[in-house]
């Protein structure tokens, strides 16, 4: 566990440093970014440099950043003039709600589909649908859902983060491709598990097909799904940027996009570090989940 913690810290540090270097190498200097489209005179520039301590060497700024970050101070947004921690904290709720709902929806959908579509024709229909879903740009899915269910039919609000109804379409959009992939993985896992000798034994005990599937095979099929948790996190967070744009939802995705395009360095760094942090946490959880599901891995 200690080792895992250390590895996690190293990943965090590497992520922050890489992002720092990348942004240092980006075109345009920080002062330009802060000025944006506004007026640009030497007086203004010197004030900005003084305000943000930009006259220090890059290394000093970097070390200062690390030192503050270690203490939980992620700095202040150049653009929004607020502490980055507040910016992130304000926006994390909607993104988290979206991601968790979509993940839950995707997983449930995948479970139901993988278990129910065992007959050849159902399987064919389902796998074709999955293939289409995972091959379609998610923004296209979103746009089509939005046009049909919101603009034309008016069943769901157009956008924003106003209650449960507004969550339906974005969550579905994000969940569909996830469900597509997970169904494929689960079905594949079920197929493999059903080929195992213990399934023959289970059937030879008089167990019905459904019981074999749910009580024995499903648990084995879940193992490869757990290895996908890290991937799932990437899809959800990455997908959130696009989904939030399409549906006009607030959230981390919007913050990220805005921060990157306007080179709001402190926010970008915070998003990177945050993302790495969540990744480390989620992977640790995945490892633990592995131990719960597969006791063979519990050693010493």
């Amino acid at each position, binding site marked *: 566990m200690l080792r895992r913690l250390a*590895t996690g810290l190293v990943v965090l540090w590497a992520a922050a440093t890489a*992002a720092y270097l990348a942004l240092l190498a*980006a075109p345009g200097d920080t002062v330009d970014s802060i000025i944006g489209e506004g007026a640009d005179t030497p007086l203004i520039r010197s004030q900005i440099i003084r305000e943000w301590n930009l006259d220090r060497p890059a290394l000093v700024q970097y070390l200062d950043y690390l030192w503050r970050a270690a203490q939980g101070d992620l700095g202040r947004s150049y653009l929004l003039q607020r502490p980055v921690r507040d910016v992130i904290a304000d926006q994390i709720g909607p993104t988290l709600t979206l991601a968790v709902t979509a993940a839950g929806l995707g997983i449930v959908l995948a479970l139901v589909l993988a278990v129910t579509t065992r007959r050849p024709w159902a399987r064919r229909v389902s796998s074709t649908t999955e293939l*289409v879903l995972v091959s379609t740009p*998610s923004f296209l899915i979103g746009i089509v859902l939005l*046009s049909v269910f919101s*603009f034309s039919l008016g069943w769901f609000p157009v956008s924003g983060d106003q209650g449960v109804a507004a969550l339906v379409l974005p969550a579905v959009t994000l969940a569909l491709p996830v469900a597509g992939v997970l169904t494929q993985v689960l079905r594949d896992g079920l197929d493999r598990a059903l080929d195992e000798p213990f399934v023959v034994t289970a059937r030879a005990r008089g167990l019905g097909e459904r019981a074999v599937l749910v009580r024995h095979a499903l648990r084995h099929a879940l193992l490869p799904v757990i290895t996908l948790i890290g991937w799932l996190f990437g899809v959800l*967070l*990455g997908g959130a940027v696009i989904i939030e*744009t399409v549906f006009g939802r607030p959230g981390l995705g919007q913050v990220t996009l805005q921060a990157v395009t306007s080179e709001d360095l402190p926010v970008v760094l915070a998003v990177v570090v945050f993302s790495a942090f969540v990744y480390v946490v989620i992977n640790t959880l995945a490892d633990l989940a592995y131990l719960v599901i597969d006791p063979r891995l519990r050693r010493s």
Partner: protein
Amino acid sequence: MTIALDRPLSLRLRRPSGGGVAAAAGFLVLALVAAATPSLFAGDPLAADPLHVLEAPSAAHWFGTDQLGRDVFDRVVHGARHSLLIGVVATGIAVSIGLLLGLLAGLSHKYADEALSRSFDALSAFPLLLLALLFVAVAGPGTVGLVIAIGIATMPNYARVVRTQTLVVRQAGYVTQAVAFGDSRPRLVFRHVLPNVLGPVPVLAVIGLGEAILAAAGLSFLGMGPQPPSPEWGAMLSEGRGYLSVAWWTTVLPGVVVTLTVISLTVVGRRLQRRFEGRLG
């Protein structure tokens, strides 16, 4: 789908793809021909016609016209070159770097392997999109930034597969046997390890190409891709979005083409994968 890889490359799916393989292969050939010689099939993708903007699909304009009166079908056909090229080059970057680092990790001693593997992990700690955004911030939006971004961001997937495969091959009986014949280390690597590691890579690359095209479309959608008036598919989708309520065809039709391309690549890739595994299994 989204911008992260639609599935990890190491995932092997065993379902037969049925008769769709022929259709998929046919579509890919069509796309390739379009990419090679777009002018044979379509007119000037940049020819604006302010008097005929946002016209619905018709015999004259199969896919309708866009906000500048350009023929959407012409743009889609010409876009094949941009989009496929972006996908191919990005995948090429990812595969070559991934191959190199994966081999290096797989063949190195414990600590070097650990360090490399951790750095793949660190790279994977970011959603592809965030990574791509960062790279675009550095290299600037546009085709070059986009290609490098997707290339670097998808690299760890290949590196991991190659590393695992290298470890498997290293432990394989035939490598031990080759040692028994006194083969030197470089000889081992070049005669046995490398060829057997390389085997599955082209197949993965075909499937990965679909992912790269999707990722490129997503980034273009956010305005990080090729600049106007380039008829790149993602950029077309992004531009068309503003006119969705009045001209669905500027968004939906190029989108359908993207989907068909990715599906075709996946179907063909999986078929190749099955054949490949059948040959070795």
